[in-house]
């Protein structure tokens, strides 16, 4: 089996592609929409907005989430904001500008047509969210306020305090709840997708585990939308929520969906540093803090002094020094790497020396304590609660942490994977952020996909595809369920000596040390070797107490860790094959004399798409050439 990677980009000028495509797409007549059932897995911004919108249109939606209510999906934790090209600030913004910044921010490894469409619908998202009652920050005149984010020289970020993701998600959730009340969305909570069911080559259903009863359940539909987020938790420690995992995507990969650019991981520069072995997660401090906070380290190595005792001339404000035109708002990949370089030089601060300062002293002096508190009060409080340090008085200590994954299941312009009928939205797909995502773009993409893209492309699919009647009694459902049962029983039967968490932690060490901020051929080979051994050990020595008859949290976790281990190997393999540096993918062998990422456009202007070929054979690497017809490939400079 081999798949064709046709991105299905519409013909015509960039700015007209989407309108033309919408016009040419087939539509499902309003009275016929109620004959179709759509499964939406995940209820974050992508899944929530898609479920609400499709239900409003008249489709029957089955919505699944792993938490106890759709409102808890991890989009909720996004702090800083959402981009739009409204140009309300009169600083010269436009759709084209937002498009250009996003393409450049992704280091020219994303698809032009998708990114343009994203920029084009961004403004509709802001309008939509305001009309749903999202209390965005406003000026005294009643107009919407904006702030700046990394990688942009305009103020285009809309925000709701430090809780923008929460407010947007609650907007999407409220839209869902409206349709739940109308009976157009059936809600399934505390369910985890365990497999995809394909019939005649098309995605026609899913197998889920009812986490509370332990039972496996079957659901059939005319199309499946996967909105299950990213896989940053493969690193064990990340800013992701504890339940964020790769299982749904991974099972689809094993059923024939191509996995694109798995190694493209975003390491966010401003997180609270690791402080102990028991730690379960890392907490992000919003990028918006870099609007006013200055990042620095002591010029002297191993400087034992307190930050307040280090005079101005002995501080290295390294982002301002190296990137004068973007300063502290250099993009995430660049800022993270520079923080790592400083710590590698022995200039890191704090007890572990794996941290840099983010200092508000000058901003407080300039704008006053009250103004700074108004902007960041809740973030400062959160920092103090976790670290017991007061950032009004002493600089924050920050260090990069895994935050977002640009890679994901490959999709065409219609957001359809290599399996017909399986659509992938939001962070779970690969399409819009290339090798690095700019701040305030994730919320934009999740909502763009769910509100404004999928309603059109899905109707085209449903209207133009012959779909046979299927029921959950079909053999494909039975077989898929049986396969999950076999895996579950195997996990329960091992009764080894190590918990799933111990394996996960070990995997995390391989990933962070060798597939993290900086990668090398030797390191990646070591990681692949180590992860393979880990996988072998896992299936002989994992300890999963209990059985399937009830709420067995350890079983749920073990199944996720099993998939993370396999994914980890694929990420290392992908990083090894990409012999260049781009965005968040930094290969030590490929750098400029001043340690910036060195792309190889001749060989690597493509998305790498991996095809699963079976348990005992290596995955096959395919490529989708990325054609740049409107943007000139240039060295990405923020100097």
């Amino acid at each position, binding site marked *: 089996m081999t798949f064709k990677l046709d991105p299905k980009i519409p013909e015509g000028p960039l700015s007209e592609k989407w309108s033309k495509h919408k016009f040419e797409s087939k539509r499902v007549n309003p009275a016929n929409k109620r004959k179709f059932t759509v499964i939406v897995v995940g209820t974050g911004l992508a899944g929530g907005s898609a479920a609400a919108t499709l239900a409003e249109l008249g489709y029957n939606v089955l919505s699944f989430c792993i*938490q*106890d*209510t*759709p409102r*808890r999906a991890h989009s*909720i*934790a996004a702090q800083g904001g959402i981009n739009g090209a*409204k140009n*309300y600030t009169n600083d010269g913004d436009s759709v084209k500008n937002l498009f250009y910044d996003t393409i450049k921010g992704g280091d020219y490894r994303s698809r032009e047509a998708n990114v343009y469409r994203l920029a084009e619908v961004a403004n509709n998202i802001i*309008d*939509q*969210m305001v*009309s*749903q*009652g*999202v*209390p*965005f*920050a*406003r000026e*005294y*005149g*009643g*107009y919407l306020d904006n702030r700046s984010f990394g990688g942009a020289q305009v103020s285009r970020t*809309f925000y709701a*305090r430090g809780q923008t*993701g929460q*407010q947007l998600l609650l907007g999407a*959730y*409220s*839209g869902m*709840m*409206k349709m*739940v*009340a109308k009976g157009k969305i059936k*809600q399934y909570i505390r369910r985890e997708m365990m497999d995809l069911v394909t019939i005649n080559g098309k995605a026609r259903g899913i197998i889920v585990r009812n986490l*509370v009863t332990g039972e496996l359940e079957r659901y059939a539909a005319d199309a499946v939308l996967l909105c299950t987020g990213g896989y940053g938790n493969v690193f064990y420690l990340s800013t992701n*929520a*504890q*339940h964020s995992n790769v299982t749904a995507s991974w099972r689809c990969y094993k059923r024939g969906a191509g996995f694109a650019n798995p190694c493209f991981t975003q390491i966010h520069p401003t997180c609270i540093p690791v402080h102990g072995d*028991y730690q*379960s*997660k890392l*907490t*992000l401090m919003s990028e918006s803090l870099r609007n006013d906070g200055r990042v620095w380290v002591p010029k002297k190595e191993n400087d034992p002094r307190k930050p307040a005792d280090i005079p101005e001339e002995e501080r290295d404000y390294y982002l301002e020094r190296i990137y004068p035109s973007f300063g502290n708002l250099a993009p995430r990949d660049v800022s993270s790497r520079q923080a790592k370089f400083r710590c590698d030089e022995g200039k890191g601060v704090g007890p572990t020396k794996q941290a840099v300062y983010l200092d508000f002293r000058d901003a407080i002096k300039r704008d006053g304590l009250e103004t700074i508190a108004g902007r960041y009060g809740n973030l400062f*409080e*959160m920092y103090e609660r*976790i670290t*017991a340090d007061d950032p009004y008085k002493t600089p924050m200590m920050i260090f990069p942490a895994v935050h977002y994954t640009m890679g994901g299941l490959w999709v065409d312009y219609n957001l359809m994977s290599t399996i017909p009928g399986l659509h992938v939205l939001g962070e779970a797909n690969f399409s819009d952020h290339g090798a690095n995502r700019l701040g305030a773009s994730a919320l934009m993409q999740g909502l763009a996909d769910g*509100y*404004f893209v999928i309603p059109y492309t899905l109707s085209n699919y449903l209207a133009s595809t012959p779909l046979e009647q299927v029921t959950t009694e079909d053999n494909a459902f039975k077989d898929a369920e049986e396969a999950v049962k076999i895996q579950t029983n195997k996990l329960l039967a091992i*009764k080894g000596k190590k*918990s799933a*968490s*111990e394996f996960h932690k070990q995997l995390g060490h391989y990933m962070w040390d060798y597939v993290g901020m900086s990668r090398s051929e030797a390191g990646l080979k070591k990681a692949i070797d180590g992860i393979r051994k880990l996988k072998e050990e896992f299936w002989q020595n994992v*300890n999963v*107490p*209990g059985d399937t008859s*009830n*709420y067995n949290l350890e079983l749920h976790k073990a199944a996720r860790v099993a998939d993370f281990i396999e994914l980890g190997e694929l990420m290392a393999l992908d990083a090894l094959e990409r012999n260049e540096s781009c965005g968040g993918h930094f290969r030590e062998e490929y750098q400029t004399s001043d340690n910036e990422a060195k792309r190889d456009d001749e060989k690597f202007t493509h998305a790498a798409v991996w095809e699963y070929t079976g348990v005992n054979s290596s995955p096959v690497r395919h490529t989708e050439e990325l054609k740049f017809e409107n943007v000139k490939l240039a060295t990405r400079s923020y100097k």
Partner: protein
Amino acid sequence: MASNENMTLNLKIWRQSNSTAEGKLVDYRVDNVSPDMSFLEMIDVLNEQLINKGEDRIAFDHDCREGICGMCSMMINGKAHGGFKSTTTCQVHMRLYKNGDTIVIEPFRATAFPIIKDLTVNRGAIDKVMAAGGYISASTGNAPDANAMLIPKPIADEAMDAAACIGCGACVASCPNGSGMLFMGAKISQLALLPQGQPEAPRRALNMVHTHDTLGFGNCTNHAECEATCPKSISIEHIARMNREYLKAAFSYHEKKRSDGGA
């Protein structure tokens, strides 16, 4: 800060194998608790010990572990989320306790929140109240330009104060009546403050309050325990605004049943 040294703690944790089984408090001891650990990380450590002994780990709800998803729940020493100001359970750190402390950990208890297992409860009733009207009916594609409607900053700010609710249910668990008026009031108030929410405001108040009352939540008798334990410090002023909205609607809002179909 209570301590910089690692601690030993005695825990009394509610164990209940399923919704119908009988539950009881079980004693556990955890050594080597670092003051920098979060409360949930401390239970993770205990759970790893239980798993290694082949025992069933303690089931508790959690997800983001940064105080925003609203999934963690737990009564700690009789207080929802431990009773620390503006703090969810996942953001409680062990430096707030001292060596040798005994800590009692129970699930959120309320008629509307039946226990699923151990410390995990079913808070589906919150979704049901939201589905009864906690939204603005603005279907995708209808929206006018975002700046077409001006909203004074103080109003937007107050709406945001109410919108900050994370739906954790601490208000219900800490209320002697098991009332859901704070989380519901916050939503009704948020949408009533904003001009976009006006067209549906009376309908929303009537339907949500009615649904709330049928789901096993009690009424508000102004104890204000909810405000004291709310991890987002949501004020009971929003309950007052909800009451005004409800009264206004009860007296003045009527929907005639229509069956004339239209063109």
